[in-house]
């Protein structure tokens, strides 16, 4: 047992931290205000290999493994959670296609996602009436000729308008429950793929979230990802990995909140002392640090299991649940430590506070994580 990072992992951290500090963080405030998608930042992530960290090198990825991915996500999230979620979804889609795609699919999509030729990948599972319960989806995939036709609505699709390729789940067999769902690869510009409204979000505003509709969207048979009827299983596998990503995001959010709070607690004086010298503040900092380390360890533990090819569903849910909830506590404390200033945009902590809120919701709410964990331990 050794919690030290390997050389490769440590290098990834160094690179990601520099990128976060020099490229991502400087434009985070502007991205939050304008809601503008940070194209140039995403290109910088691509150059660093961060859009396909755990995609094999043969497919254009960095091939650095799940632990390196979690570490990179943590660093980017500490700089800007909006960029981190964009990066996370693209990684998830690239990994998914590398794992379940045919050689033709993987060779077409993965290098384009990794290089930034396609600015993003998108993951279209949720629907207006089916979030935590994806098996309730109503988007239909119907056989026509030698191919398929998609009809239906998808909701909350990160990078849905920016993605070169979208993984879209649809029901091919209405009577077959979770076994009647199939995943498809839909490239941008496919007729019948219609990008709907952009959501106005309270946080992670520089990430793009749209609704999509599929109107008689015709796809060739070669668009099926994995096997027909295998879609639900594919989605669950992807979400397990995605949850490691959100665990890493939560960890990054806590670190950003803690570092900002430490700076402020050293500078700000009250009653003749730096406020960090008061136990009221010091104890908040101690709890943030402890939550940070626990989140990080749970996240890296799940990533390590994934890297070994072992089961990691429960561990990924624990990491996601713990880190996202710990992040809520940390960002709220950060605002508290900053007092009135924390409630203004003079300091970044109010953005951290808004950005972190989604972490207990997306890629499986806290409630879904608890179900996953409980089902496993009560089995």
């Amino acid at each position: 047992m050794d919690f030290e990072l390997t050389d490769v992992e440590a290098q990834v951290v160094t690179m990601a931290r520099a990128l976060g500090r020099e490229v991502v963080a400087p434009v985070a405030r502007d991205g939050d205000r304008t809601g503008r998608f940070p194209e140039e930042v995403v290109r910088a992530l691509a150059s660093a290999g961060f859009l396909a960290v755990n995609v094999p090198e043969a497919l254009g990825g960095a091939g650095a493994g799940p632990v390196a991915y979690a570490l990179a996500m943590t660093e980017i999230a500490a700089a800007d959670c909006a960029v981190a979620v964009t990066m996370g979804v693209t990684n998830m889609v690239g990994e998914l296609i590398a794992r379940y795609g045919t050689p033709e699919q993987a060779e077409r999509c993965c290098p384009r996602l990794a290089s930034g030729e396609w600015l993003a990948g998108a993951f279209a599972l949720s629907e207006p009436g089916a979030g935590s319960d994806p098996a309730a989806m109503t988007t239909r995939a119907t056989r026509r000729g030698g191919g398929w036709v998609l009809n239906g609505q998808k909701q909350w699709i990160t990078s849905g308008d920016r993605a070169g390729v979208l993984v879209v789940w649809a029901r091919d067999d209405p009577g077959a429950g979770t076994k009647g769902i199939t995943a498809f690869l839909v490239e941008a510009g496919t007729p019948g793929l219609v990008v709907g409204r952009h959501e106005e979000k309270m946080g992670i505003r520089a990430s793009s979230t749209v609704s999509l509709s599929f109107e008689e969207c015709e796809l060739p048979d070669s668009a099926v990802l994995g096997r027909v009827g295998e879609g639900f299983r594919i989605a669950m596998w992807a979400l397990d990995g995605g949850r490691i990503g959100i665990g890493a995001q939560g960890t990054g959010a806590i670190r950003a909140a803690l570092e900002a709070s430490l700076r402020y607690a050293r500078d700000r004086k009250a009653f003749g002392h730096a406020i960090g010298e008061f136990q009221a503040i010091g104890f908040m900092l101690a709890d943030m640090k402890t939550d940070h380390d626990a989140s990080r360890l749970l996240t890296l533990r799940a990533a390590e299991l994934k890297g070994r090819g072992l089961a990691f569903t429960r561990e990924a849910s624990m990491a996601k649940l713990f880190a996202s909830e710990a992040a809520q506590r940390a960002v709220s404390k950060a605002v508290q430590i900053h007092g009135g200033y924390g409630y203004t945009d003079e300091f970044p902590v109010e953005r951290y506070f808004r950005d972190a809120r989604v972490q207990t919701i997306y890629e499986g709410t806290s409630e879904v994580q608890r179900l996953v964990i409980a089902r496993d331990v009560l089995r």
Partner: protein
Amino acid sequence: MDIQLTDEQRQVRDLCREFSEQELRPNARRWDEEHHFPREAVRKLGEMGLMGVAVPPEWGGAGMDTVAYAIAMEEISRGCAGTGVIMSVSNSLYCDPVLKFGTDEQRREFLTPFASGDKLGCFALTEPMSGSDAAEMRTLAVAHGDEYVLSGTKNFITNGPQADVVLVFAMTDRARGHKGITAFLVPAETKGFTRAKPDQKVGIRASGSCSIFFEDCAVPKRCRLGQEGEGFKIAMSTLDGGRIGIAAQALGIARAAYEEAVAYAKERKAFGKPIATFQAIQFMVADMATEIDAARLLTWRAATLKDKGVRFSAEAAMAKLYASEMAERVTSKGIQVHGGYGYTKEFDAERHWRDSRITEIYEGTSEIQRIVISSALLKD
């Protein structure tokens, strides 16, 4: 990054789990009720090498690493938290400092029989009027010829009622504050050493604690551990390691509560179904499992750092803080899952809850841990 157990660590876990299940768990409720010190179980722990897990074999110990120690502490505490603290005092608070700061001569006399479990040691720092603020201690040690003469009172000394030797901290130079504290190894048969009746405690009742008294208690100079004035440093570095032991104890207590809650939730029916099928119960169980895993990772991380010989004070404090507060939450949920039965002695849930409470207090309260962590943060 490698979070897998080694073969040796796995073996320790399996061995301790079996011992705990067979020898501790069936008796823990009775020992708690009777305030009974489990002499026979402690003797067996000694035979298994568990009273000096990280002490090299040449000094009577098992020669394993701190992760193995944390694993053993968790498993033993899962069976009986009182037995767990007896073991942790022997390992962390007694054997560890004697190994680290003792001369070979001192190790022969004061370590080997203790690491092997033939004798029992204890650690006497706290006083009636100085707990968290150890530098305020009143106990004095005055050099007199070839001897030091100790006088004063120590409080809440775990293993005190049974100890053969006391590792005690006393002021040799009051003017120098914490730099005037010196450590001594005092055999219990020394004239002038007496002990009060054991304390009546809320939990961990299989372990004994008591006040101890030094009245013109003269010990030879060879009983001084480390140099004059080095006592505070010895105490603090010892407590860093002790915190890993207590974090692991809290883990074991929480695991007992959690495992019993899971078993109960599967059996107990309400509204026509096992209560495990309700989200209200499932979500409690999910939180218990998650928090236990978080605490274990923090504990093992601190243990690996100790083995590497790098600074681990803040990491041990985080492990101890989180694990102890986690244990109180988890054991409270354990009672909740059991409903009315959880409030009775028919199940062990109530004992786990009582046992957990001390882990937030001893070897540095939660408040002290937060001071250690925040000081490290603000210093960086």
